[in-house]
């Protein structure tokens, strides 16, 4: 029996919210990155689920793109975290706050 698409929506919303929660509460750059991954994957859930719902593959294909881009983003992100550590001796994102106002 097919699961109603609405449930996928709920699931993805939950995953998205978890990711968002992580971003809001954690100051570790790596956790930040992971949370972003969660949010991206929430989108992927939707894409795949509704691809199934509509019976076209557009969504599924797009979710592949999303994953690839997520990986690229993380690659850049890790690089930045590296230089962050080099300059601030910490990967706490709240520490890098010299520029403000």
């Amino acid at each position, binding site marked *: 029996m097919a699961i109603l698409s609405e449930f996928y929506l709920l699931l993805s919303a939950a995953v998205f919210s978890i990711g*968002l929660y992580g*971003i*809001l509460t954690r*100051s570790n750059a790596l956790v930040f990155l992971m949370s972003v991954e969660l949010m991206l994957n929430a989108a992927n859930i939707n894409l795949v689920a509704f691809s199934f719902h509509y019976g076209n593959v557009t969504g599924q294909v797009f979710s592949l793109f999303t994953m690839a881009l997520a990986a690229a983003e993380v690659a850049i992100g890790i690089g930045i975290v590296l230089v962050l550590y080099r300059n601030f001796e910490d990967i706490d*994102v*709240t520490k*890098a*706050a*010299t*520029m*403000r*106002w």
Partner: protein
Amino acid sequence: MAGVYDFVPAVALLPFLAFVVSLFAGEYMPKRGAEAGIIATAGSLALSVWTLLTVAGITGPATSFNENLYTWVAGGEGAVTLNFGILVDPLSALMLVIVSLIAFLVHVFSLGYMNDEGETGLPRYYAGLGLFSASMLAFVFSNNLLMAFMFFELVGLCSYLLIGFWFREAAPPSAAKKAFLVTRFGDYFFLIGVVGVFATFGTGLFAPVEGAETLASFPELAEEALAGSAEEAGVNTFGYDPGTWFTILGLLVLGGVVGKSAQFPLHTWLPDAMEGPTPVSALIHAATMVAAGVYLVARMYGFYALSPTALAVIALIGGFTALFAATMGVVKQELKQVLAYSTISQYGYMMLALGAGGYTAAVFHLTTHAVFKALLFLGAGSVIIAMHHEENMWTMGGLRDRMPVTYYTFLSGSLALAGIVPFAGFWSKDEVLFEALIHGLGSEGAIGTLLLVGYAMGLVAVFFTAFYTFRMVFLTFHGEPRTDTARDPEPVRWNVKGPLTVLGIGAATVGFINMVPVAEVTGREIDYLHKWLAHGDISVTTTEHYGELLHTFAGVDPAELGPVAPGAVSLVLALAGVGAAWKLYNVPDPEEHTDKLGGAKTVLMHNYYLDEFQVWLATGVTVPLARAADKFDQGVVDGVVNGISSVSLFGGSRFRRIQSGVVTNYATLMTLSLVLLLVVFVVAGGVV
């Protein structure tokens, strides 16, 4: 054909040229520009006399002249055209002669008063005199109200320049300022009046201009409007009853007259104006500035004659001023101050005459006054030269023997001023009072009563006039010299004595042009001035016409009364004044009797506190008001502007703190705004 009228503009242009020449080339002339002025005013005098003769019909048939010469602004359709033009009729021809004569004599006298005294800045002085004469002459022959106003204002400018001639001292610039400002205040009303007259009638012409299409004058139109309906006459009375509106206009114009002719309550500038060089005072008082006001009323008498209210106001102002100023003249200690108040007083008489329907009497008094007042001032100038610029009469005394020419001419002027028969002032003042009396008696209703009140005040003033005049004469010339300077005065030269002599003779004789009582008694037609003004080419500016207007519109009519008895009354009063002065001051060693006046002395010395009042108006009301406005402007109006800017910048400086620099806060804010947008636009379904 080139007649004299083609040269009338030159009457004013010549002194104007003198102004230019003196100003720019005076420095290089031996007499520092006086030459130009003397030649020019002599030329003006010659032309004026020629004009007078032409108008009188001596050189040919008697004619008048009224033409527009120059379009100042052409309004095109729907707007009046503003012209400059020339009106030469008996009145203006007479006035031209008086003005140019006095101007000429003043120029000559100035050689003695200014050049011989080694003054600096003479080119400026003579330039000022030239411009003064030019403006006044142009004012006199103006054929419309706007042109008259313009030169009237220029006269004011010149008085400013000349009163403030000694600009390095403190008092003259202040007096000059006051003179201009007070008269400007009057001119403000005058200007409204001018604008109003043009807006009402579409013309400011004093008399109709004949031509291919006859241009009506505004007094005529007003008459038409009063007689018929305003629409028919093409007159816009702005929703008022024509009579009321014309009265308003007349009174507005009168504002300028009151200012320039130093009538109550705008007379305060005139005593201060004594700060100017004495020849300038002579010019101002006798023939130019002060005369301009009265002349203006005479010029547009056809308009005033339509309004009983305006006439009553004029008469009352005149009568009151005559008395009021005379009382102040009694206590003054400086020679020129006495003369100043006498001027105010005498112009009051003229106003009284005009208000009372005595047009001829006013012109007559204007004429005689011009002569004897110029004489008195020049005489005073001569005394001042002799006294090394000391003006206080208490430092003089006994000058009679030391400067006889000055004394006798001055005496001639004083007798005229005091109104002693047969000197000029007697005839004219007598006629003024006579006219006031008969019109007061002859007119029905309130105006008659008011005219009688004016007459009464004028009559009382006769006594005071005689008293202060001879107080002045006795203190200055009689008795023993009270100072060393007075014992050994500086001699004066021909250029002082010459003008004095001419005027001295004039003061004694000029009254003969209109000896009404004599004419009445003898039955001989020697009231030349009456005849002169009664007829003319331009019928609407004749006294015949004015008489009709006064009768028809103002209800002012003469009573049947002989001139002899009233004349005798005023003569007795004058003699009483002289006698009182004789008693008090014609002693070897006179003393001040003013203390006997008690509190009244203080009031009189302070000129009834009117100066203080006006100064208070300026510095006690206007200046604080201006300061308050300034505070308001800086604080509120500009404060709002600066406030907006400060608030914005302060807001900005607080607001940017939202950019806290901590990236987690950014994420929070982003999330919050996302949620907010979702709530508003998705859950609530939009802002509306």
